[in-house]
């Protein structure tokens, strides 16, 4: 291991300490060191968005952040969404609207959508489409993903007008 670093990472409100090489991406530390395998890795160069997580509440590509750069920041992954095995509203909407098929891209889309809706709670369907265009899905054709996120946005707006 070249130039090992002892890192303190806050992931889903839990403190973790890991010893990693600087070249380890945040995506790989989440998966291999913290065993949080919900974050998926597709292209490893920032195109597909499968590894999207929230870093200090902003959606980022975990393959384009070195874990050493995330020290002192708060990381949220897909594992933070469900509550004791019960799906979150957004996850349930993906199921209800058939917003997934193979499911590989789903964790990235969920975290991207959480990031987009946190910033634009009033997002229109068009704005949701624009936001979701960051990630790739090879199964659904996207319409059902947009449906799921739009339905969640509407339901959240109704719940907290």
């Amino acid at each position, binding site marked *: 291991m070249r130039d090992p670093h002892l890192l303190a990472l806050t992931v889903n409100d839990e403190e973790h300490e890991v010893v990693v090489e600087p070249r380890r991406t945040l995506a790989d530390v989440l998966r291999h060191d913290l065993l949080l395998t919900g974050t998926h890795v597709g292209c490893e160069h920032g195109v597909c*968005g499968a590894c999207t997580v929230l870093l200090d509440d902003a959606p980022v590509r975990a393959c384009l952040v070195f874990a050493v750069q995330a020290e002192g920041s708060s990381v949220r992954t897909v594992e933070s969404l469900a509550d004791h095995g019960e799906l979150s509203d957004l996850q349930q909407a993906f199921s209800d609207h058939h917003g997934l098929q193979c499911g590989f891209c789903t964790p990235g889309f969920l975290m991207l959508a959480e990031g987009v809706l946190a910033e634009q709670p009033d997002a229109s369907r068009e704005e949701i489409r624009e936001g979701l265009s960051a990630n790739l899905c090879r199964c659904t054709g996207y319409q059902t993903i947009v449906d799921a996120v739009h339905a969640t946005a509407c339901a959240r707006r109704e719940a907290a007008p």
Partner: protein
Amino acid sequence: MKPAAFTYHRAHDVTDAVGLLTDLAAAGEDPKLIAGGQSLMPMMNFRLARPSALVDLGPLRRMPSMTALDAEAGTLTLGALVTHHAVETATLPDGFAVLARAMRWVGHLPIRSRGTVAGSLVHGDATAEWCLLALLLDAVVVTEGPSGRREIPADELFHGFYATAVEPDEVVVEVRFTRPAPHAALSEFARRHGDFAIVDAAVALDLDGDVTPEQVSGGRVVLGGVAPAPVRVPEAEAVLAAGGAPGPELFAAVADAAAAAIDPPNDPQVTAAYRRRLTRTLVADACAQAAGGPR
């Protein structure tokens, strides 16, 4: 792929960053700065870039000047760690609103959340929106190096093919945009939204409001994707300088002049003729948007 191994060094202020770059280079290392990393990391993951050491500017986000956006007296100053997204969501004065509007073309939200303005300029991709905007609005890149501060005007910044005038031992501290352009727009075409543009065009129109109806009295035309570096097109600017009523006829003449003046590259994906055609379409579109004000 995974990036090659490197050693990691955190800079705690600008002087520290310059010192680390100098010391590492003296020790035979090949250090590189990382800020947002949205250009560098894909290159490292592909192993197109294999720096032996990274100096992280991340801790400098604590310094207010590094993330500040300040507008005064016709100049907009961006700290070196201002992100694309910070510009996108900022309320900018009229003369610089084009910067916020152009951000929708920069990658996608997750890239814009992390990538920095200064990083994009120093990376120097010939189609990067910030490189065009730097030429459009007379940006000045302020760097600090072992021999002190230096100011690099945009027209001396780009050397082509990812090469810029910023030296390997220099750190950008701020970018100043010194030419407000209330009537300006950027337009581009890529096969998928968020990809690097095949061609992009930025236009600023000088409108003479003293006469009715308004007349064009000059302006700038900047192109990306038609040469190894972003370029201004004097031939097209001459058409604007000759003046006329802002409208399809004048804008078509500007677009034709731009398309005729360039010598775009031919590559297996995109022919020179296609880039020329895109140039004509995009320059006319950017002119129309610029004349129409904010969109």
